[in-house]
Structure formats: structure tokens, C-alpha cells
């Protein structure tokens, strides 16, 4: 064996582990604590690693990238990237309609992003991570702000020249923001 030190270390570790196992097995506590055998192999992530992870975008704006756009700028992006599946001005296609003007009450409601979705950050986030489906994640931050602004403008929520950016987007209040009741989350916003 060319690495006797390593072998000895392994032997020591094995003896130690066996002794530990005997010690733990002697108590009822051990039986209910499988964590005693957890190898703890997780590798610490550096701040550099964390910066590479895709951000979660929360309703308060945390995670939003720096950027800007307006509805006027977003119209052309929408027509090029989105209209094939969602129809002109979000009126619908194979990907369903995005914009509606119907009620969300009664037996035959018409929920759409503008009438049903509670947060504008969600619209930005889904455009950014998932759209267009032929090239998800391909929109720049500015393009995503612009196309999100276009949809919010089509839905009558912001003006054509209102600039969306990482500060203004979380301030957009969606009409149905408070329309949701949490069902299976104890102690939180229950009906």
C-alpha cells in the first residue's frame, strides 16, 4: 500500500465510528436520531456561487434585476416574441389569453393576468424565467420590464409611458391583490 497514512486514518475513523455507533445504539435516543449517521457532504457556497444562482423575485421587489422599460417600448417586443401564442394584444391563441375585461365572479368568470393575478412581480418573473417558450430566459432585463409594462398597460393598470424598473414595479397594485384566501397554511391569512 502506497498510502499507509491514509489507510491508518481510515482505520482510525472506522474504529471511532464503530465506538460511536455502540455508544449511540445503547440509548433509545439513537433509534430516533438517524441524523447521527449523516455524512454532511454539502459544499459551502461562496458569495460568488450565490450570485450565479437565479434570483427568486418576491412581491416586495427583492430579486428584481436593475433595468427599465415602458409599454410603448414593449409593444414591438410583444409582437415579435409573444403574439404568436398569445394573440394580438394578449387576446389569446395556443398559449391562452393574457388580458381580459370580464368579471371574475359568477358561474362563468374570465380570469386573466390583469383581472386575477395578485402581483405584478409575478408577471415579470414568469416572463423572465419562462418566456418565450421557444427560448426561455432570452429576454434582457430591459426587454422584460418593457413587455411586462405593455401587458400591464393593455390591462388598464399603468399608462403607456409609465416606466417600470426595479423600484416602480413592486409599487404597481394589481386589482385582485387581496382576492386570495390561504387554505392549508395554519395561522396565516385564513378565510
Amino acid at each position, binding site marked *: 500500500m502506497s498510502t499507509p497514512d491514509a489507510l491508518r486514518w481510515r482505520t482510525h475513523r472506522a474504529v471511532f465510528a464503530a465506538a460511536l455507533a455502540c455508544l449511540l445504539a445503547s440509548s433509545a435516543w439513537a433509534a430516533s436520531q438517524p441524523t447521527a449517521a449523516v*455524512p454532511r457532504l454539502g459544499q459551502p457556497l461562496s458569495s460568488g456561487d450565490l450570485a450565479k444562482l437565479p434570483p427568486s423575485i418576491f412581491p416586495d421587489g427583492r430579486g428584481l434585476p436593475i433595468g427599465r422599460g415602458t409599454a410603448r417600448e414593449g409593444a414591438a417586443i410583444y409582437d415579435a416574441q409573444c403574439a404568436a401564442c398569445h394573440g394580438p394584444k394578449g387576446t389569446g391563441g395556443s398559449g391562452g389569453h393574457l388580458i381580459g375585461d370580464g368579471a371574475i365572479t359568477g358561474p362563468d368568470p374570465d380570469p386573466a393576468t390583469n383581472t386575477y393575478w395578485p402581483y405584478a412581480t409575478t408577471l415579470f418573473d414568469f416572463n423572465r424565467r419562462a418566456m418565450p417558450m421557444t427560448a426561455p430566459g432570452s429576454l434582457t432585463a430591459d426587454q422584460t420590464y418593457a413587455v411586462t409594462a405593455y401587458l400591464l398597460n393593455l390591462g388598464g393598470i399603468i399608462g403607456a409611458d409609465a416606466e417600470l424598473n426595479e423600484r416602480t414595479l413592486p409599487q404597481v397594485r394589481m386589482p385582485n391583490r387581496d382576492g386570495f384566501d390561504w387554505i392549508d397554511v395554519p395561522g396565516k391569512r385564513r378565510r
Partner: protein
Amino acid sequence: MSRIPNDTPPHRAGLLDRRWFLKSGLRWSAVAAAAPALALADDALPTTRSPGQPFSNYGQPSPQENRTIRWISANRAVTGNGVSWTPLHDLEGIITPSGLHFERHHNGVPQIDASQHRLAIHGLVKQPLGFSIEHLLRYPMQSRICFVECGGNSNSSWNAEPLQTRAGYLHGLASNSEWTGVPLKLLLDEAGVDPEAEWLVLEAADAIAMNVSLPLAKARHDCLLALYQNGERLRPENGYPLRLIVPGWEGVLNVKWLSRIELAREPVMSRNETGRYTELQPNGRARQFTFVMDVKSLITSPSPGQSLPERGLYPIKGLAWSGHGRIRKVEVSADGGKTWRSAELQGPVLPTSFTRFRIPWVWDGRPAVLQSRATDETGRVQPTRAALVAERGRAGYFHYHAIVSWQVDEDGELHHVYA
């Protein structure tokens, strides 16, 4: 018509005591003997006179069973967006073959190199950590037999008219497997969860980077980071190399191709927990974070697409499950819910798992409506469709779990009805 012995217990619309098959084996043999005999071949079976096929590295179903398939309903423009349904009507027992487990993909099945895949755990933790699959395979594992059911399963049953198709293509966005993997709690403890954290934001490595929020308490309670399904490594369409199993909770939380877990104080409010997977009620309020899949059952045989060739004795069999725990009881009706009789539950009866039920039934040749009604160990009872629709309207789309009705016509054909 097959003759039923005179000492048969009183039956309800043809439903016999659930143990009748077992108790009357001899008499049933006599009944069967009265049917025309199947001719046996005069000569030796050909398969006994020539060598068979060679070994195979991975077995496949008989070519004669090639109609037992997942039924695909995909977006016409984006073929990787849609679902495929488990053919529950063709299956027996409680385990769904991995190749027939239902699929819900938002933008295709990613082809992931397991050696390059990483799971990151970060956010409100003491030490953000990354895990390779190779490392996860060295962790203590547990196995659990449980169902995964899409929140949108059975959604066509909200329609005003009953859709005519096979049972599995109505209710087969539910499947049941043995999942094996690492308890999520172990990795959360290793990273050290901040006391401020209450939610996990889960994210997938698919082509929408699918993300969704899960309460921390559930994650610590019984969630598994699954690496194996039914004894073998996950298949690509079921999340290879790593998915989360959230026992009893709606399918979208059981994130496939899991790559990132961020601990947070509040839910991220992603598209799939706001605009989708929420249920709009007639009053305009929406149910959100409806996580638990409620008590449910259906008769898988006989069911639409099958037919009864003659009057006589048939086994009624089906599946029941509940996200709240074990199934306690399944009752079956052959008269549209007027009378009920308890079916036999086939063991093992496991929490948050499919449970197989069976009851013998004599069809007298007249129209009948077959139904099953499950009760779970918490006392929750599967509602009638009328009761569910009265409570929630028909526009909620998700979480349909009402009693399912199959009409048997005089000619022995079966149809889906609302009764």
C-alpha cells in the same frame, strides 16, 4: 346468467358481501363450469417445442399489451407543455409502473447530466450549501409508497356535461410509486435553517425554471429528496436525477429536476401559486395554497370503454386515496347512491397511498349506476358532485374529488354520467 347460490347474503342492487368470492370458491367454480368450456389445443403447445427469446437487458411489456399507454394531451404549438394520463383502467394493484406514471411538463423534459447536477440550499440558512448527486447517494435514505396527484386532476369533471373517455383519461393525473431518497430535513439541518424562515422556494432545472413555495413545517415533516422510483433511478420524465416528494400534497409541489431551495420568510408568489393552481370561487374569492389532496376514489373496472358481455357476476374494483392519511372505508353503490355496501380494502393500507378496493357484483341486465365513496382516517368523506359544485362552483379547475359515476346500459356498455 350465472346462478348465485341461495344462501348468498342479502345484496344491495347486486352488490354481494365483499368476502363472497372467498367464502364461496367452490360454488363459484360450479357456476363457472356451467359456461361453455374453452377448447384446449389437441397438440403440445408450440412454445414447448422450440427455444424462446434470448435475455434482455431491460424488459418490456408484452407487445400484446401495447394499448396500455399514457394518453398525451399537449399544447398544439408547444409540444412539451401539457400532460399525459396514467391508464388507471388498465392497471391492477396499487403500484403504477414508472413508465406509466402521469406527466405534467411545462416546457418539455430536460436531459440532465447527473454528474453535473447540483442542489443549492441557500437564503435564510447559517451556511449555504451545494450538493452533488454523487454525495446525496451517500446519505441515509428512506422509502415511501405514496401517490402523486396533479392539482388539476379530474378537471374535466367540472364541465357541465360529462366527458366520455376512459377512467384514466379523466382521473389519471394521479399515480402511485415507491419513492426512495434522502429526507429533506437532513439537508435543512445541515445548512442550519434560520428561525425566521417559514417557507422554501423550490426551483427546477427545466425550461421554465419552474418555481413554487412550500411551507417549512411540511418540508421538515416528511418530504423526501427522491433519487429512486420503484427501485430504479428516477426516469427523466419523473425528475431525473432529483425530485421532491411531498406526500399527500398537490403534484406541482413535488418539484422535478430540483436544483435550488431558497429559505424565506414568505412565499415567492410565483405564477404556479397565484395565476395557476389556485381556485376561483363564484364569489370572486380564490382559494390559494390548497395543498392537501382530498379524499377520493373511483371504480377502475368496470368503467367506460369496457363492456359487460352478459349478465352475471363481476368484480368491481377501484382505487381510493387521501392526502390526509389512510383510507378507512370505501363504499360502493350500484343504484346511483341509494344503497351502499362496504368494499374489501386490499392491504397494505398505507397513508397517502393508493388503496385497492374490491367488491363482487351481480349484474341483472338492467341499467345501473356504479359509484364509490371513500372515507379517510380523519373522517373526511368524498362528496357528491352536486355538493362539491354547490360549495365551489365549476370554475375552480383544480382539486376536483367528488364521487365518480359510471352508467351501465342494458347492452352492457359503460358511460360516464353525473348522478
